[in-house]
């Protein structure tokens, strides 16, 4: 038995949608087996994971609130991955963005008078800080040829430790009984709620608009064309006069900015203050979302909602069925693997050739 892969000369749009859908179905089946192995009825688990969260207003809001940062970060990452740049440090950019924006919130705490500028300033500070932090691995790559994979990841740990230091030190609430957290933000430093008495805040709108903007940029602008060409044919991109260095810096800044914005949206929206931990691993989960969404903004939006659904469903399963949260993580890892594996069918004609590895067809 031998596996032959013949590259497709053109992509089939049907397979582009079908292959991740099949991967998702396969992951659900395997997940069901795992659930059964843990002694829970797969049918119950399916309902808890994928149906129950869709049936209540509060959990629908939670899904949107989880999907928003995931979609925002993943869209930024898509720019990098489209250009074959392996930025895996979005978690760090998220943290730095939250920290920088939150700092503005802390610094303006108790300010009187005109405060309408505070929230926009926080958002801008978060995005800029995320972009600047993302530029560190980009500059190292462009200037010195250092692989961005490891540097971007190492900087995640550094960012987390920096946040930890800041909320335990300079930014700690002096009246907070030594708890490692900042003061609670003023109303002017919080994202407004979309509906009275509910949890959905304006951050969801920001994320949606950003993803829509990214979709337009990627598909309809010369810059988006540049990103796509550099990823698909780097040499042709140079022939088109597109500069590798400039593009590397641009896409890292975009992805860092998007992750930073997601960070401050999370801090100014859901959390309302700075804490040692502001992310449940959004920056890493977003990598799954980016690939699950096939690196296209509309796909990413769908993928973010699916992943958010499984996360909320996982929390429900932990409470209702005593299924561990790690199951959700394993499911997500498995899902990414299957999506990547299924991608082979979209990119190649796959043929299983009979006979041994060194066989020839029966004549």
């Amino acid at each position, binding site marked *: 038995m031998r596996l032959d892969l*013949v590259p497709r*000369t*053109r*992509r089939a749009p049907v397979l582009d949608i079908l292959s991740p859908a099949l991967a998702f179905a396969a992951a659900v089946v395997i997940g069901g087996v795992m659930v059964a192995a843990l002694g829970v009825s797969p049918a119950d688990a399916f309902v808890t994971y994928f149906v129950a969260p869709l049936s209540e207003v509060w959990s629908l809001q939670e899904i949107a609130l989880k999907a928003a940062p995931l979609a925002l970060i993943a869209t930024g990452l898509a720019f990098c991955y489209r250009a074959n740049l392996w930025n895996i440090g979005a978690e760090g950019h998220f943290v730095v963005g939250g920290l920088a924006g939150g700092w503005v919130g802390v610094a303006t705490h108790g300010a009187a008078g005109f405060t309408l500028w505070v929230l926009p300033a926080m958002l801008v500070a978060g995005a800029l800080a995320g972009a600047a932090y993302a530029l560190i691995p980009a500059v190292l790559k462009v200037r010195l040829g250092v692989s961005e994979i490891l540097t971007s990841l190492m900087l995640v740990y550094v960012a987390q430790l920096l946040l930890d230091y800041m909320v335990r030190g300079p930014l700690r609430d002096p009246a907070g009984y030594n708890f490692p957290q900042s003061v609670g933000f003023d109303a002017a430093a919080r994202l407004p709620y979309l509906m009275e008495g509910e949890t959905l805040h304006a951050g969801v709108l920001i994320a949606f608009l950003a993803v829509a903007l990214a979709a337009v940029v990627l598909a*309809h*602008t*010369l*810059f988006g*064309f540049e990103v*796509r*060409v550099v990823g*698909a*044919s780097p*040499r*042709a*991109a*140079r*022939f*088109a*006069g597109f*500069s590798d260095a400039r593009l590397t810096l641009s896409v890292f800044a975009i992805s860092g900015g998007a992750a930073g914005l997601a960070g401050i949206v999370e801090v100014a929206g859901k959390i309302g203050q700075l804490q040692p931990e502001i992310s449940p691993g959004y920056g890493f989960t977003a990598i799954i979302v980016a690939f699950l969404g096939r690196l296209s903004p509309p796909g990413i939006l769908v993928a973010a909602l699916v992943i958010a659904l499984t996360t909320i469903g996982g929390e429900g399963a932990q409470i209702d069925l005593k299924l561990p949260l790690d199951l959700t993580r394993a499911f997500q890892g498995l899902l990414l693997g299957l999506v990547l594996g299924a991608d082979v069918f979209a990119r190649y*004609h796959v043929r299983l050739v009979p006979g041994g590895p*060194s*066989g*020839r*067809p029966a*004549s």
Partner: protein
Amino acid sequence: MEAVRSLSAPVPRAKAGPTPLFGAYGIVKRFGSFTANDGVDLEIRAGEIHALLGENGAGKSTLMKILYGLLEPTEGVVTHKGDIVQLPNPEAARQLGIGMVFQHFSLCENLTVAENIALVMPKDLSGRALADRIARLGIDYGLHLEPDRPVWSLSAGERQRIEIVRCLLQDPKLVILDEPTSVLTPGEAEALFTVLERLRQEGRALLYISHRLDEVRRLCVRATILRAGKVVGTCNPREETARSLAAMMVGNAVRAVTPQEGATLGKERLRLDRLALPAPGLHATALRDVSLSVAGGEILGIAGIAGNGQAELFAALSGETRAPDREAVRLDGAPVGALGINARRRLGAGFVPEERNGHAAAPLMSLSENALLSRHPTAPLTRFGLIRPGAARDLARRVIEAFDVRKAGPDPAAGTLSGGNLQKFVVGREILAEPGVLVINQPTWGVDAAAAAHIRQAVIDLAARGAAILVISQDLDELFEIAGSIAVLHDGTLSAAVPSAETTREAVGLLMGGSSDAAPAPAP
């Protein structure tokens, strides 16, 4: 491993004479919908150098890979001394005594010479013993090698020696050589011919794949000619003329190119002044004080063997590599050495690189996107940074019509086009911009004869409209056909240009091999 097996199926009989050492009968090889070999028969006898002739894309490499066990034929059989043999992998081919000298050397750059050879040797031969045998063979055949040198530090000629030594160490009965002289200087080629003749006298069979007719006529007494995957004839090349062989190779599709007549040259449009660039990478060539000048209406041909600085010269002309001295490159008098490719395009220059797939065009992108690729600086294809897809499609359509590009579907991916059609597209894309200066690297490499004639004619017509054209080509016939003057690039140094009417292929060939003469000698 049981490589030889008698089957109950009837063994194809030799067509004439004694049983050949190796035979291939009814070979068909399909890649998807493309048929690379279509019912090919080939017989090779001991003690002969058998030529396999054909244009690029005729199916020579496919056939040779089947004989070496690298590809399995869709249909057909290979025989050894009349028995059908299985060639599931190169290991089996080697055990049958088939050796191969690859055109694109199968060498690992970061391994040493000895390591590269040890890779295909029997298990027990390694270390000191192997080094000894390499040394002995080197003395024996005049193939000197330093076993401990890493391959990346070696010249093309030295690399080929590794391939040959690696092949000879296995005492092969059949040696397949794929375009062995394509990267060699004439001197290196001479040395190779001596070795080949010696191998023939030792009673080995050699399959010599080439499209260089003079070499084939010199070395071989039997030739099989392939065209579009089919055998179109077998002959003794010494009894044929170069013209009749060429006719067999390319068929009757050759359209004559109308040459430039009494071209009146305008003012200088492209100029290089002592352009010097360090080698950009390990395997690249440094450019040394390259100077040239092309006037409006002129076609200057740059001859040379691959790897002598052509790619670097093209990059320096296009702006993909910036020159350290901005005055070293001039377009219509303006110093552009420091400008990028798009700035040079806006000054009226157009460029066609050697590699179609992945350099001149992005294979997975549509033709209209590929129109955008090089024309976005000069054509109104964007507005406020937004792409105008209609305008890009329209431009692609105009190129397709003007250059008779055959394609499937309304706006297919560039990679789905055949080599000749994609080349017509990328050349047409630039010519339709009516550039004042056009630089083309290998305009018709691997392109069928009809498309090649179309492209050459378009280039000549563009010059007639007053453009300055620089053609870099390894194909001397092409240069003598279209270029008004010719200069030779050797090891990063460019000779002075001489009118092509006043020199000969021999004189140019000598320079390509690095002869110390300053300019191609005038014809006697």
